[in-house]
């Protein structure tokens, strides 16, 4: 599903050029459960941004389901993020003004979906993540775990092909973190492709495939059963 060849991302920092990604090739198949591991500055976040269509590579190619994402213009990238990708962030990134339901609706709004249809789907998704009774709550009235569940429901809104999670348990206590990871497993079991970015080996161990980044390169790519 994802074909990445010789990907480079170079930033200009004053006089210095910094290679966040220095030639990365990676293939991810549909239905995989992948963890991208690395210390901060290893290039894993840059990798995730490019995978999610938030950023463009300096060199190299990125094909998603055969489409050349590197050639997309801004609007095509926005559509790509809207329909193909679901983002889950460490800090949840819910809009505080909106209720849980409205937050989940947001990607569907940008997809131009009919209000009744999207409201019904948002309610179903909240049900799916176990927050059916909290639809009318604002983020500030919810615990971190609940907020992250809302964020996951939002990520699933337009039935994406790929769920990208950036340190999804980083802001949660360990028990809540486990619950969230369990939810990811369930989603993966239903066929959703997952890429989880983390610096925490314990979280990474939950994934069947672990790709380790260091200094903008992949230094290991292991497959194995969850421990």
């Amino acid at each position, binding site marked *: 599903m994802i074909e990445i060849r010789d990907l480079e991302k170079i930033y200009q920092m004053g006089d210095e050029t910094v290679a966040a990604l220095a030639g990365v090739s990676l293939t991810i198949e549909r239905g995989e459960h992948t963890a991208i591991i690395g210390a901060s500055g290893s290039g894993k976040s840059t990798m995730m*941004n490019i995978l*999610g269509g*938030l*950023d463009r590579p300096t060199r190299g190619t990125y094909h998603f389901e055969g489409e050349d994402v590197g050639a997309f213009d*801004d*609007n095509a990238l*926005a*559509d790509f*993020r*809207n*329909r193909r990708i679901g*983002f889950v*962030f460490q800090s949840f*990134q819910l*809009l505080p*003004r*909106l209720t849980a339901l409205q937050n989940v609706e*947001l*990607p569907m*709004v*940008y*997809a*131009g979906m009919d*209000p009744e249809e999207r409201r019904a789907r948002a309610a179903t998704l909240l049900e799916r993540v176990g927050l059916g009774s909290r639809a009318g709550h604002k983020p500030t009235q919810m615990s971190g775990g609940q907020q992250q569940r809302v964020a996951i429901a*939002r990520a699933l*809104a*337009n039935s994406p092909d790929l769920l990208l999670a950036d340190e999804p348990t980083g802001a949660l206590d360990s028990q809540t973190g486990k619950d969230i990871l369990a939810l990811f497993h369930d989603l993966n079991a239903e066929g959703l492709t997952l890429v989880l970015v983390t610096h925490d080996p314990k979280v990474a161990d939950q994934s069947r495939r672990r790709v380790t980044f260091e200094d903008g390169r992949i230094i290991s790519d292991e497959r194995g059963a969850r421990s």
Partner: protein
Amino acid sequence: MRRIDLVTFAAGAIIAHPTRSALTSLGVVIGVAAVVMMTSIGLGAQQRVTSAIGGLGSNLLIVSPGASRGPGGGFVSQGAGTGNSLTEDDAEAMATQIEGAVAVAPSVRGGAQLTAEGANWQTRVEGVTPDYLVARDLTMESGRMFDDTEARQGRKVIVIGKTIATELFGEDSDPVGKRIRVGAVPFEVIGVLASKGQSGFGQDQDDIVLGPLQAVRSRVVGRRVQGSNVQTIYVKAASADEMDRLQEDVTNLLRERHRIRQGAEDDFSVQNMASIMEAMQASVKTFTSLLAAVAAVSLVVGGVGIMNIMLVAVTERTREIGLRMAVGAKRNDVLFQFALEAITLSVVGGIIGLVVGVSGAMLMAKLGDWPVAIASWSIPVSLGFSLLVGLVFGAYPSWRAARLDPIEALRRE
């Protein structure tokens, strides 16, 4: 995305900060209200000038004895009316020799105490000819005007205005046939003039007494006006287009009759009401534009206020913008959302400003006894301008929002 959802987003952001939104709009409210009020003051002044001069009679030339010093005759007739150069014969000559004069009305006037049925009233009595009604656009309410025969015979009859009728005989009385002593001389009331109300200069135009020229000159005015002299001759033209020609004909005729040599100064002055009105209106218009321009500046200041707050909002909501982009908002979706917010703040301010401005104009009209004159164009224009202000001053903040890098934006605390 659907357009209605953009509106919902923009409205949601505005409602989320009610106080801030209200204060942001306030600048536009004040600006639009100021524009509406200022233009209405200007328009009111213009109407007042029109009615002030029009109240004297339309298409009217006022000929007075004595030279006017200003070229063309200023509105304030310096020195005019002081001489004794105009006579009834001059008026007669104008009436017979000048083409296009609808009415020629010589007049003398003097102050007098009116007494009737125990009441008294100090006023000015005018001695005129029947043509005076035509010249000054007056009409009778009851009774009749005296005719040429009565005037020539020096009959002691008068026609009075509404104010006099009320002051001397009480409300709803019919003074026709009653007697009024003008000074010591008894006159018979033969008619009452239809009310003209207050003039634009604040004078009561119904405080008026008209009597035959000879009778008033000899019985009321006395020695100040001798022989067949008159103090004013009113000449009415058939139409505004004829005013200039008529003025020239009157001047030429009088110079000839008064044997004024070429190059010598006139011993009379001719005021052309049409050109005076034009000059006054032009100056009022300039004044109005000036007021409107000052008010427009406050509208622009209101726009700057919107830009300021929108820039703050973009900074505050950087993460929101990043998130929206991450879940699929296109740059234009973000641009339009913020532009719509700015335009809504501005247009809502414009609508409120319009209401405030119109009520303010009405209140001022009431307090200042000023004609309410709200230009119909001020409604679409002020709304259009507030839309424009929102568009112009919302453009830069919206562009800043749309241009944000989603990665940077999401990382912002």
